[in-house]
């Protein structure tokens, strides 16, 4: 592999990668589900609890101020990471799912009426389907789905035709968690904006694999999860343009998000606090910022380039196996490979790969409508991170070949 990254040194930052399963070295290829954590992220969590833990924003005491500053610095780190214009455009959520639910609720209640349309694509994760169906049940909106071609690329002509005067929002995955397709979100946003339609981008699979600039994209909303980008579980981000967030009502009510409360009337806090009811995850935010700094040490471009080489190598090697079927062959593709061998069931293959120490995801990957479109029940999915190696891919390919011969 042609890279400036010192992969051996990077692997040493992730203690879990040196463990074994069933007495075999662990090959962790389930990164699209969750990434492993470098030592510095876990240490950041420890540091908060051991030396600066206090509830934030409401204390005059020293520790509370330290904790508050750390939390707000984390917000600025996230802001810089995705190049948002203002730190108040960064809302901490529990993850991508909560962020999409927030928009489906607050935006949906404000701007959507019966017969209005939300446009999604045929390759969305359930997290970008079900919140809109809940909105449909509440408000009678229509959910329209843009199809994709045999390579797993969005049908942009169909997208253009799907836009109507009733379209209120386009909500699209930046990268498909099943097909690996990198969707042309800049193009989608430009076209939607030409009709004054805002766009939400589900960046859960993107932010750890490529540089993301929300201003360059001109995204109205951009959402992602900490745990898929080497950060902790339970924290995620909703980026929203200030002009939109200002117009939306709060999602949850409680402490932190108010200006004044009387029994007759409550006024809400300014952004971003309006959307952060209750004690925020000020531990997770600090650890997330550490994960961002960790990635930035290497650069998202270098990370993405190396992962792309892993993808290409794995694709070439897997294709040498008789009966290999790869789902998703988009020209613009991230380091995710969904496959089946002949008609061997994904559960059978996954069970035996597991015995060989290889962690892959099997099943429908929370994208059952996509599986229906492909006419299959599920796939085996290998997804790579920048701590993975060519040798691990060799192990995967050898294991798949060994297992497929058993059927």
């Amino acid at each position, binding site marked *: 592999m042609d890279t400036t990254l010192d992969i051996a040194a990077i692997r040493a930052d992730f203690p879990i990668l040196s463990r074994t399963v069933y007495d075999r070295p662990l090959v962790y290829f389930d990164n699209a589900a969750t990434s492993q954590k470098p030592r510095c992220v876990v240490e950041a969590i420890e540091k908060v609890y051991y030396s600066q833990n206090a509830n934030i924003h409401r204390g005059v005491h020293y520790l509370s101020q330290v904790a508050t500053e750390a939390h707000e610095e984390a917000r600025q780190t996230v802001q810089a990471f995705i190049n948002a214009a203002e730190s108040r455009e960064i809302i901490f959520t529990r993850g991508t799912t909560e962020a999409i639910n927030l928009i489906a609720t607050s935006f949906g209640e404000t701007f959507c009426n019966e017969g209005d349309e939300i446009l999604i694509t045929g390759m969305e994760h359930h997290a970008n389907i079900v919140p809109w169906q809940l909105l449909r049940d509440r408000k009678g909106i229509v959910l329209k789905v843009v199809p994709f071609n045999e390579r797993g690329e969005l049908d942009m002509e169909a997208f253009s035709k799907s836009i109507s005067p009733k379209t209120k929002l386009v909500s699209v995955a930046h990268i498909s968690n099943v097909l690996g397709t990198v969707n042309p979100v800049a193009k989608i946003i430009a076209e939607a904006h030409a009709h004054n339609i805002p766009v939400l981008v589900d960046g859960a699979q993107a932010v750890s694999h490529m540089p993301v600039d929300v201003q360059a994209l001109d995204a109205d909303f951009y959402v992602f999860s900490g745990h898929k980008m080497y950060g902790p579980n339970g924290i995620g981000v909703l980026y929203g343009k200030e002009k939109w967030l200002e117009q939306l009502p709060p999602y949850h009510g409680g402490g932190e998000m108010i200006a004044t409360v009387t029994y007759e009337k409550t006024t809400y806090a300014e952004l971003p606090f309006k959307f952060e009811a209750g004690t925020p995850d000020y531990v997770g935010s600090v650890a997330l910022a550490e994960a961002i700094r960790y990635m930035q040490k290497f650069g998202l471009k270098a990370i993405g380039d190396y992962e792309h080489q892993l993808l290409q190598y794995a694709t070439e090697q897997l294709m040498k196996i008789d009966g290999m079927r790869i789902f998703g062959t988009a020209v613009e593709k991230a380091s995710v490979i969904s496959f089946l061998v002949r008609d061997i*069931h994904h*559960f*059978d293959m996954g069970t*035996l790969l597991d015995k060989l120490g290889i962690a892959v995801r*099997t099943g*429908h990957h929370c994208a059952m409508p996509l599986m229906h479109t492909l006419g299959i*029940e599920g796939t085996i999915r290998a997804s790579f991170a920048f701590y993975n190696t060519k040798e691990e891919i060799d192990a995967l390919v050898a294991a798949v070949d060994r297992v497929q011969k*058993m059927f």
Partner: protein
Amino acid sequence: MTINEAQDQVIEEFSEFSDWMDKYAYLIDLGNSLDPIDEKAKIPQNLIEGCQSRVWLDAEEQGGKIVFTAESDAVIVKGIISLLIRVMSGHTPDEILEADLYFIDQIGLKEHLSPTRANGLLSMVKQIKLYALAFKAKS
């Protein structure tokens, strides 16, 4: 053969496998030679939907005994089904209700009956007992 005799026989068979590959190769063989369930029995009421694989289970009473037939879309699951049927099918409702399925654990396939596997097998075992309960109530 009693349920426990059948279980002991399976345990004996599996004791010959020293490595897991052989064990799974045998399960695949068993799965491939499992009699398919009657197409007419592949109805939604007989479907146990796991997250990872699906299982169809049908039961009928023959002379006071319950005969089970089952199938899955995954071969390894079918192999385990074949063992479960060999042990549980053709017994009276009381025998089935009282059965303690220890063989799965002993042959090292316990993980496949854990709720986290979501392959339909755990639900299948529960469903076998429910059928026994239902047939008992009817008789």
